[in-house]
């Protein structure tokens, strides 16, 4: 007999509480999808306005509109932080309650379940076998020991290898499948705690920030979201270049940045990142998230014969001088192409002594110009961008992912596997051998009934065994 448990303990162990918390969590979560939340998607200062309008509209709808009512409601929702609901004390309190519920419930039930998993089924009382839902009685013309051996062989042949024990009044064969599947639900429950743990690790030890890094420049800091505080990376990140490709209709197709990690003055890693393909280094991950145009152009010029190359930065129609090569040039015009937002560049080149030449360049493609003095130059023009990087460090992600894996595995086991047990009790009464077959499954009982019938069919095929009327 179990001793009577403390009623607070039983309250936290109850499934009633679980149901209550699950329904309340579902209902409460709705609030945050209707009330605008403080966050990245809606600009901060417009929230208050939204907020007032929102409650105003609801009250109007109820025919209760007054400034006072709005104030009261706004106060309530301030208290319960409806505008930042998912980090509010009460919402996280509910999640905490769910966790406590899960832990207490598992502590309460797991020992019993574990006993069922490891229990010695050879101790089962014959009277219990007789009262099971799936039973069948057979007789055999062979003596009990031979019948037992034959049945054991046959069971093994159909995938139910059985162990044997003897009692004074007969022989017991027992076979079972996936007793451990009873633990599936507990793996699911554990996985929820693991995911929460991962989220907590991320909350306490993770950091999120961002930076707009102009092409060719580098930084050893990023800026925290919300506060804008500087975060030291402990190494340097450099953006070699950023490009954007477009679909024929002008919609962005891909953003790419070539990033270099410089640690201890050494370039340790170079990678081209794009959306969905970030770069990771020392726990930090750099995500391509946006870009910024500076309305300036990077003009790269190389002397083909000497191989000297130089980069210049200039807005449109502003002449640039390359002193060493005595070149003077400017982008004089942008020519629209068939793809919206993609231009060709009209580049005017001179050397201060007349001899103007015109070069039309495709975006980010090289073009060659032979000067009147015979020197050949390669020109290339692209727009000057900053790459917008989202930067995150979340040591909890892997814990969350492990939790997710556990959850799927646990659900698979809980839903599709069952603990099935089969007993055969063979005894001799008045010179006649009788066989009692009994089986149970902890889940999918209709399915097991069919399986039980199949097993019996296979067992009765032996000539010396017949079904008892």
């Amino acid at each position, binding site marked *: 007999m179990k001793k009577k448990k403390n009623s607070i303990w039983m309250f936290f162990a109850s*499934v*009633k509480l*679980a*149901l209550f918390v*699950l*329904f309340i*969590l*579902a209902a409460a*979560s*709705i609030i*945050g*999808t*209707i009330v*605008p*939340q403080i*966050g*990245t*998607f*809606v600009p901060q200062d417009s929230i208050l306005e*939204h907020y007032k309008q*929102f409650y105003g509209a609801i009250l109007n709808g109820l025919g209760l509109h007054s400034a006072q009512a709005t104030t009261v409601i706004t106060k309530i929702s301030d208290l319960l932080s409806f505008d930042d609901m*998912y980090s509010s004390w009460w919402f996280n309190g509910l999640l905490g309650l769910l966790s406590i519920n899960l832990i207490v419930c598992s502590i309460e039930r797991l020992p019993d379940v574990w006993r069922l998993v490891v229990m010695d089924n050879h101790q089962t009382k014959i009277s219990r076998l007789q009262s099971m839902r799936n039973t069948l009685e057979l007789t055999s013309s062979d003596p009990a020991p031979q019948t037992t051996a034959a049945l054991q062989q046959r069971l093994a042949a159909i995938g139910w290898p059985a162990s044997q024990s003897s009692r004074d009044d007969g022989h017991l064969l027992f076979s079972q499948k996936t007793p451990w599947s009873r633990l599936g639900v507990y793996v699911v429950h554990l996985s929820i705690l693991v995911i929460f743990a991962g*989220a907590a690790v991320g909350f306490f030890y993770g950091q*999120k920030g961002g930076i707009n890094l102009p092409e060719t420049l580098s930084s050893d800091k990023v800026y925290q979201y919300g506060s804008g505080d500087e975060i030291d990376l402990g190494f340097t990140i450099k953006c070699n270049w950023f490009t954007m490709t477009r*679909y*024929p*209709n002008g*919609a*962005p*197709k*891909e*953003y790419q940045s070539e990033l270099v990690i410089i640690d201890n003055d050494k370039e340790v890693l170079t990678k081209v990142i*794009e*959306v*969905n*393909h*970030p770069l990771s280094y020392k726990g930090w*991950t750099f*995500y*391509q*998230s946006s870009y910024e145009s500076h309305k300036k152009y990077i003009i790269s010029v190389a002397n083909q014969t000497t191989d000297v190359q130089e980069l210049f930065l200039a807005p449109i129609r502003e002449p640039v001088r390359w002193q060493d090569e005595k070149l003077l040039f400017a982008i004089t015009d942008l020519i629209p192409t068939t793809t919206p937002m993609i231009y060709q560049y009209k580049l005017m080149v001179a050397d201060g002594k007349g001899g103007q030449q015109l070069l039309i360049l495709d975006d980010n493609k090289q073009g060659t110009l032979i000067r009147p003095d015979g020197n050949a130059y390669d020109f290339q023009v692209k727009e000057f961008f900053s790459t917008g990087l*989202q*930067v*995150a460090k*979340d040591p909890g*992600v892997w814990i*969350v*992912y492990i939790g*997710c894996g556990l*959850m*799927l595995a646990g*659900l*698979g086991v809980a*839903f599709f596997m069952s603990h099935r047990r089969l007993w055969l009790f063979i005894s001799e009464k008045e010179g006649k051998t009788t066989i009692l077959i009994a089986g149970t499954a902890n889940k999918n009982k*209709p399915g097991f009934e069919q399986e039980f019938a199949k097993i019996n069919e296979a067992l009765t095929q032996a000539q010396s065994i017949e079904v008892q009327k």
Partner: protein
Amino acid sequence: MNSATLLTYSTFGYLFASFIYVAAFLFKSNKAGLGGTFFTALTFIGQTVALGLRWQESYQLGIGHAPLTNMYESLVFFSWCIAGFYLFLEYKVKNRTIGAFALPFAFGAMVFAESGWLKISQEIPVLIPALQSNWLIAHVMTCFVGYAAFAVACGIGVMYLIKDFSRQKDKGLMGTLPPLRTLDDINHKTMIFGFLWLTAGIITGAIWANSAWGTYWSWDPKETWSLITWFFYAAILHARFTRGWQGAVVAWLAIGGFLCVVFTYYGVNFLLSGLHSYGSV
């Protein structure tokens, strides 16, 4: 033939199949029911081909992605999943009356996709960079398999309630429906199946978000609503498994759960879009 024509045919195919199933049910004709199965399977095959064609067409347009990326394509895929899941169920349960309650969902999804009521674009969309991810494909597929199961569970819930409310449960028209216990059992199994896929859908979505933005969960309305749906079904499973809720209550809950699914799927996009830029169509 191009995918658009074939998809229009699919809409009528499911309409026709639904019609046959309903007629077979009303006239208690098992033979006619066989016709329903035949037309469902035929339409399902045609729709599969159409999805393949649309995929191919997107490559010809230089876009090149699986047809799973906007509202139109997801509705078509939803309809395909419902029909596929239903055929699987019919094979398992061997009762065609369920078709009269399940197939109309496949037809309904196609109607919303094709009719223009929702003012959605039927064109093959170009993919903005964030959507170019295999995790997104996995996410959409897993979610919609789950949603399809929930749609069928809703249909079975309706069946259960009709049978339960009618005076003569086991005679006449109602006698051709599976017994209440069987319906209850199928309903439960279908929801379990959907729950597993919805779980996988939420997880793959989180992984996708993390690979695109470095945040696996940000409580945006779409995510939150999928979680609400998940909590709801988790509660149903517990109510049934540990507190013995059964029958009519669970049938009502199956309908309620599907309403959550519908809201997650359309409601968030159409009703909450005024407040959240991210949720817009």
